[in-house]
């Protein structure tokens, strides 16, 4: 009997995909409300890969500025045209949808799209967390094309790309976004269900729901270490944000550093960020890095604090969650390692951690 995601699961889902966002991926509360409204009491099937009969799965989501998404919510009908565009071009019939990105708002919007199109959601995605670029997808890392790729909106604007490398596709999509008002719905080349193990990251939503359920138990008196253990995370530091630096110059967007001083100690933990938290140094020693996941949580409420809202003075706990195993594969790690973000340092793997 396949699992069906209903309104009461939305809270856990939102919490879980927020944690997988590693400080990025956008604000999930708005997306969560949108999903509840779209469900309207109904449910959407969330199929494990082994529950799939076969067929082709279309990866969907949005690309663009997540802040623009909050200001201009979907009107309904965004994903129909883009899914139609890629399925028509490839000549397949979609058997289900999957998210391009489990972390952040894309982890929720896939259910909105599935509900609109009347398709099931497959428990897999292309990132296993939040990542900023289309060429940082498992498909691209596996050397497969992302195209045909379509971006569009509910007003009929549609852009179809084909025959382009992931990097070129990313560049063109990025430059076209302003014409779509900051963000657009996206659908990528449909993937045969049988190949998901190789070119996608299965199980991300089961993980998100599990994380969300644990995280929902966070209360004021909770022991952060016990909470971290339940989440399968380790506590990097428990303390106060002493300094937030945002680098206006240089490459990338949202570059900056957050420095946390441990409560009752002198240890300083520095987080380097670019939309997501990417690298953690304790007293100058690298202790965790992308592709692993770093979360900054409000110490009292457990609410995740995103990169663009972190402020000095906040009492926080910094968690380190293992990243998707896919990205630790030697052939894949380069696409999401610190160097892919301009941080000239090797990724801190499980064997490097104390």
């Amino acid at each position, binding site marked *: 009997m396949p699992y069906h995601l209903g309104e009461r699961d939305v809270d856990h889902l939102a919490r879980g995909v927020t944690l997988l966002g590693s400080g990025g991926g956008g604000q999930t509360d708005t997306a969560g409300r949108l999903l509840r409204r779209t469900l309207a009491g109904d449910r959407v099937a969330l199929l494990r890969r082994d529950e799939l009969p076969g067929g082709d799965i279309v990866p969907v989501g949005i690309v663009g500025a997540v802040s623009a998404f909050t200001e201009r919510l979907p009107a309904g009908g965004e994903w129909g045209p883009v899914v139609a565009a890629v399925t028509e071009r490839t000549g397949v019939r979609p058997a289900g949808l999957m998210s391009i990105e489990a972390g952040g708002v894309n982890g929720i919007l896939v259910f909105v799209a599935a509900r609109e199109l009347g398709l099931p959601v497959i428990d897999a995605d292309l990132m296993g967390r939040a990542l900023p670029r289309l060429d940082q997808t498992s498909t691209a890392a596996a050397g497969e094309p992302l195209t045909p790729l379509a971006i569009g909106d509910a007003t009929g604007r549609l852009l179809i790309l084909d025959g382009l490398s992931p990097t070129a596709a990313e560049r063109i999509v990025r430059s076209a976004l302003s014409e779509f008002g900051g963000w657009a719905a996206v659908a990528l080349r449909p993937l045969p269900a049988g190949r998901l193990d190789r070119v996608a990251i299965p199980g991300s939503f089961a993980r998100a729901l599990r994380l969300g359920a644990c995280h929902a138990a966070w209360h004021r008196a909770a022991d952060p270490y016990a909470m971290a253990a339940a989440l399968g995370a380790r506590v990097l530091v428990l303390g106060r944000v002493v300094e937030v630096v945002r*680098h206006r110059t240089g490459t990338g967007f949202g570059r900056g550093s957050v420095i946390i001083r441990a409560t009752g100690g002198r240890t300083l933990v520095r987080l380097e960020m670019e939309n997501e938290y990417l690298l953690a140094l304790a*007293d100058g020693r690298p202790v965790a890095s992308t592709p692993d996941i770093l979360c900054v949580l409000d110490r009292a409420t457990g609410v995740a604090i995103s990169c663009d809202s972190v402020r000095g003075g906040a009492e926080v706990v910094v968690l380190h969650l293992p990243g998707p195993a896919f990205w630790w594969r030697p052939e894949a790690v380069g696409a999401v390692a610190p160097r892919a973000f301009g941080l000239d340092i090797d990724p801190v793997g499980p064997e490097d951690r104390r």
Partner: protein
Amino acid sequence: MRRGAPTLRELLGHPRLAAAVPLAGEDDLDRPVTGVTLIDPADTSPVQAGDIALCPAVPPGFLSGWRLDATLRRLHDQRAAALAVPVGENGALLDSTRQLARHLHLPVLGLRTAPLRWAGEAIALVHAPEVDAAEVLRRAHRALTREPMSPQDVARALSGILDRPVGVFSPDGTPTGVTPEPSPRFNPRATVAQIVTEHGRTTVAVPVPGTTVGAVDLWLAAALGQAPAYWAAAVRDVLQAGALAVQRWQAVRRVVLERDARLRAGLFSDLLEGRLGTGDVPRERASEIGWRLDGWHVAFHIAALGQVDLLRHTDAVSAAIAAEGIDAAVVERGDGWSGWTTTRDEPDQDADRELLAALRRVRRRLATRFDCAIGVGRAYLGPAGLTRSLAEAWDAARLARGRPQAGRLAHIDRLGLAQLLVAWASTETFAPTAARLLKPLESQPGDLIATLTAYLDAGGSVAETAAVLGVHRNTVTARLRRIEELLTVDLANPDDRLALHLACRVTQGRQSGG
């Protein structure tokens, strides 16, 4: 000779390394430095423990980036002494990076100069400090051997070479002019070079020996701030070279003074014997050294009391006289110095009084060096008049010696004939008589002889006597009554007064070594 490695703080105290300023970790500068290793912020090649790790170039944004934190950690693990990085004008670290540096005990130095040049200087100072020491000594030698330099000029030249304040202290250790304050632990009585370190700040003081053994004429002192021991030793050597230069200047100066003195003494004896009035040659020589022989002259004589090396103080005496606004020629003569002022018109009473007041202040100025008695002559016209005034000043000075109650200052006019009589009366026959006359007062309480002397000098004024002695007038009256009783005299009787006055003056003069 292998010294202990200098500490980072000491190294930064050296002027040649002053372009490095601690940006963080100021509390951890007291660690020995063994050398300098050049590093690249991105690579992780090892740094020798105790070395300063120096990045010759850093990428933009390095000072606020995570890379700096990671570098600090690595250097901490490798026990480096410090990290040195080039900084621009506003090279500021993040607060958290400063905290990290403090926490890891790893100072960060900002270099405001070419990093490699700084590294070269630092390596030289750590490994071969004697090269730097020899270099400053060489520069000092060149600067000091050109021409004789006064102590202040020597101090200025050395200050330029050492890039640290250098000053001149008087023999008792007080600074002259704008110079570094002497360290409280500096001991001017120990006449040897001293390196004193107080609160981490080093002062070096070197004595300039005087002409007599064990005496110090001056001190040359340099305030180094935080300085490595070898540099303090190098500075001591440099100051000793400076002391030699000062001695040389003093020797040259003394020769000039002696020559001048001999010339003046020759002219002066001509003057005293009245030979200057005639003949052109002596007059020309007199005007060459600035003596005016025409006009009205008022002479004075300053007699030094006790053993005094006159030549050594001539400059000070001239300076004191000039400082009190007296425009006078001064020359060594016998037991002191004679001088005279010259005016075109005959000076009046006011001018006389002003001169006396000014000379009283001169005496006070000289009190720190020696005690003296001053006599002043009358005003006379021309060279012959000068001769006469000088003779009067000499006589007056002799009388002034015995008159502490008058401030050892006497004008020939105020002395009057009677006192000249006293001078002539201080003979072997009169002196015992005088002593006998006053003997009954000697064993009495209340200093009766001084009271009597002051009373008679004051012309019989009780009020003035009280003021001179600093007692109440009733005390004076009571003492006078006791004196009249003890000596069975009547102080209202002029004969008694004259006899007693002479007796007082003669005994007073003998007691105070007249």
